[in-house]
């Protein structure tokens, strides 16, 4: 599939289906920016894609150190993309530390573009290299493209009256320019971005644009790069798209739910990685009746959200695992008072402070059981960045319609990762209808809807419906405080039942494949992408596997027991030690097989495929 094309000078152009690039450099090198520019351009020309930023826990770790490396990985393709790619085809390494950290991931015979200017003894030492990997054969298994990027950038900007530091900051655009040429991407979107970003600072506009173009020209004209690649458009569902991170998805989903339910959105939150961006995003949208309250701690965050819910807002709190730990007493109060509240947990590596900037799925059992008493809370988990929008909307809908707190689980991977989002038509999103208590009847705060078992919540400000709620056990129907033994037993069961029947009001998860067979894969949350990629691969190879990805975890879906018993093996891949497995085993009494990698990273499709291979062989 290669052809010759005239592109200024005669170079080969090869067509590829999919490519994974990793841009890596020092935290100060602007790699996240480079990555997101590449992403937008790639999206704009119609490839499907998926991205994963990977930045250090330190704000700006000392230059050149291993722990200061910042990376951005993108997979893009002419067909569907579901993950940022297991192992990059191309690594852009701006310094030795970036090379060191990312080399183990690179595909065999992968391409490495190296900024040779940074391979000096201090940087090599900082990266822990005893000799120069450019010279000692370390890289012999790869295709190396050594480029003195810093020097070339300075050269390109030599006629500009800027100090060297500023010029050097443009080198990421030089690198970006090279990759634009390599993968046949247009430069205009980035040029426009530079113009608006540095508006009013003409010298910076000029510098960055020049660096970008210089990189492009350099790749085009030098001998080093002999081939460029073309990745045709992907056949995506037609429509208007944008890239979206999971955290943006959640913010948008919540705003939409608020609008569709006629409530104001109230966020009570305390900053914590990787959840803070939801707070940042929501605090921008004050004209959408969004109120954000940066509380003094996580407890105050959820407490204010609960108060706001009582007063009639869509109450939301966002955090990560350690924050959930702090909120758990308030979550119990939300259960007892049966107020609508969305509790968002962007999971990260644990236990304790753990690995704050890494991803993990290990807060599932905390979501189920992390409170005193019988304290059931429905749980929904988002499958990917775009699904975050839908999951947040659904969490809010159930919270409002079933008068219950709802936990929405996401994780560091999909929170920061992006994928194209088919922008929905707002008018086609259904309203969220909430029943109101009648004004002409005696108001009984704990009288229930017979179907949902939800209660009617009278909003403060409504004349005649004055009432008090709180954390002591409630008398059935009246909601008065009750220490009665039988009432307590009854209420404990009602609360369980109320949550248990929510699966009647949400969609069943799809079963991909047959409803019986050798292997059923069961999964939840952010493993969706890697597993989808694996399942597609297996299907292509003609292997029969079935797959069901859960969005609602509590309660488990109604349809699961229609097929879960029909498989020889049920495989549950998770980024934890088997938390969904515990739930499934207890519920269905079937032996599950876990695929558990707790490395702070998304699952790798290839590793999963290898595991499935072993399982299928064993079953033969």
């Amino acid at each position: 599939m290669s052809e010759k094309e005239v592109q200024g000078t005669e170079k080969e152009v090869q067509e590829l289906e999919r490519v994974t690039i990793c841009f890596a450099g020092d935290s100060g090198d602007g790699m996240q920016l480079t990555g997101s520019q590449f992403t937008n351009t790639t999206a704009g020309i119609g490839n499907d894609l998926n991205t994963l930023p990977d930045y250090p826990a330190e704000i700006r770790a000392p230059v050149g150190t291993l722990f200061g490396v910042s990376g951005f990985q993108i997979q893009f393709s002419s067909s569907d993309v579901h993950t940022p790619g297991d192992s990059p085809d191309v690594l852009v390494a701006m310094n030795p530390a970036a090379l060191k950290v990312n080399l183990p991931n690179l595909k065999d015979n992968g391409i490495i573009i190296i900024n040779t200017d940074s391979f000096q003894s201090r940087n090599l030492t900082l990266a822990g290299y005893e000799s120069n990997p450019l010279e000692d054969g370390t890289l012999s298994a790869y295709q190396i493209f050594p480029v003195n990027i810093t020097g070339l950038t300075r050269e390109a900007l030599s006629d500009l009256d800027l100090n060297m530091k500023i010029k050097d900051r443009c080198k990421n655009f030089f690198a970006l320019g090279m990759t634009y040429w390599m993968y046949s991407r247009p430069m205009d979107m980035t040029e426009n971005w530079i113009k608006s970003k540095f508006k009013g600072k003409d010298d910076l506009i000029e510098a960055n644009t020049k660096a970008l173009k210089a990189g492009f020209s350099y790749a085009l004209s030098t001998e080093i790069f002999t081939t460029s690649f073309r990745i045709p458009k992907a056949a995506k569902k037609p429509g208007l798209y944008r890239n979206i991170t999971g955290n943006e998805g959640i913010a948008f989903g919540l705003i939409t739910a608020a609008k569709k339910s006629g409530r104001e959105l109230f966020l009570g939150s305390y900053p914590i990685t990787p959840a803070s961006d939801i707070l940042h995003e929501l605090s921008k949208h004050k004209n959408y009746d969004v109120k954000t309250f940066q509380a003094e701690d996580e407890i105050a965050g959820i407490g204010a959200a609960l108060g706001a819910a009582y007063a009639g807002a869509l109450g939301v709190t966002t955090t990560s695992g350690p924050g959930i730990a702090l909120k758990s007493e308030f979550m119990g109060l939300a259960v007892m008072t049966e107020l609508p509240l969305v509790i968002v947990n962007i999971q990260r590596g644990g236990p304790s402070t753990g690995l704050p900037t890494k991803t993990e799925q290990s807060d599932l059992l905390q979501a189920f059981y992390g409170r005193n008493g019988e304290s059931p809370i429905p749980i929904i988990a988002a499958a990917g960045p775009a699904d975050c929008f839908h999951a947040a909307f659904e969490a809010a809908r159930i919270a409002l319609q079933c008068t219950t707190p709802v936990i929405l689980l996401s994780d560091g991977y999909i929170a920061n990762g992006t994928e194209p989002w088919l922008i929905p038509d707002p008018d086609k999103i259904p309203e969220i209808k909430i029943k109101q208590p009648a004004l002409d009847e005696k108001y009984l705060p704990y009288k229930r809807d017979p179907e949902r078992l939800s209660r009617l919540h009278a909003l403060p400000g409504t004349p005649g419906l004055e009432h008090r709620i709180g954390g002591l056990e409630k008398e059935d129907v009246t909601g008065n405080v009750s220490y009665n033994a039988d009432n307590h037993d009854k209420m404990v069961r009602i609360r369980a039942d109320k949550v248990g029947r929510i699966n009647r009001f949400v969609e069943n998860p799809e079963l991909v494949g047959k409803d019986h067979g050798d292997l059923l894969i069961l999964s939840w949350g952010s493993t969706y992408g890697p597993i989808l990629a694996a399942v597609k691969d297996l299907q292509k190879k003609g292997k029969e596997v079935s797959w069901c990805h859960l969005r609602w975890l509590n309660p488990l879906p109604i349809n699961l027991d229609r097929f879960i018993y029909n498989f020889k093996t049920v495989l549950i891949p998770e980024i934890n030690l088997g938390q969904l497995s515990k739930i499934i085993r207890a519920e269905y009494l079937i032996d599950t097989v876990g695929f558990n990698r707790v490395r702070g990273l998304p699952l790798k499709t290839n590793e999963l495929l290898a595991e499935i291979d072993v399982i299928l062989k064993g079953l033969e």
Partner: protein
Amino acid sequence: MEPIQLTKDDFTSNQETRWCPGCGDYSILAQMKKVLPTLGIPRENFVFVSGIGCSSRFPYYLETYGIHGIHGRAPVIASGVKLANPNLKVFVITGDGDGLSIGGNHLIHLFRRNIDITIVLFNNQIYGLTKGQYSPTSEKGKITKSSPYGSLESPFNPVQMALASGASFVARSIDRDPKHLEDTLARAAKHKGTAFVEVYQNCNIFNDGAFLSLTEPKEKKKHLLKMEHGKPFIYGENDELMLTWTGKNFKVVNKDLNENGHEILTHDENGSGPAMEFMLASLSLDAQLPTPIGIFRAVERDTYDDMMAAQMNATKKKKGEGDLKTLFTGGYTWTND
């Protein structure tokens, strides 16, 4: 709309009060019921939020909206209520344990935010509900179940804490002076911004007589100083004692024997400056000097809720009422066809 005509009975809920007979909480409830109808606010717009403790059962006894929250967290629930619906009149009811031990941080953050909420802290210098452990306001050396050899901590001075963290209204009253309590609660309720009232409250079961010197008819004249705006600091059995200011310190002098001609000091509640405020607040710690009740500070400053509303309005003016399409397409978009 016609003016609202409410009485204290309108505010009496159908729940039986469950405090010990003789508890000071009854008086606070009674005065509150007198104040509420005078505020010109429809009953349905009141929300009482409390934590956990004997005192925190308060909301059950009022026929208003209310939340009996969790221990120490009433200020944050109340903040959410008020910010979500600024039309509501929100009260926080808390105790010395609830508000100053587990909940201390929320309280001081509420002070600095100045959200329009009225806080009443029932200070009985003991944990009532959990049956009598010492609290952050208990005097050092206090013997309780959890401190059989005497407590080691110096007590907090709630008024100083409130002043230091920027509360815009700070007052103190006492259960056994119904009129003073009623007036103080009324003033607090009418203040725009975070208003804090510390109420000395007798727990006759676990800490009986803690404030005896301020309530016994004979004693109280010798120890209680009622601060009144614009009035001199005068107290004593025959109003003969006068609080004067040396420039650095207070000094009590007999009015009639004021030989050194000390300046007569009058009370200025409208922000007399940190020096005077803190000095007045520190008085309660000093047995030689009288304990002041009344209003320490009553100043106006922008409330968080107003500023939040202003920001929202300004943003709407500038960007227009938010619509979903604009939101969704706000970033970089492209079309697949």
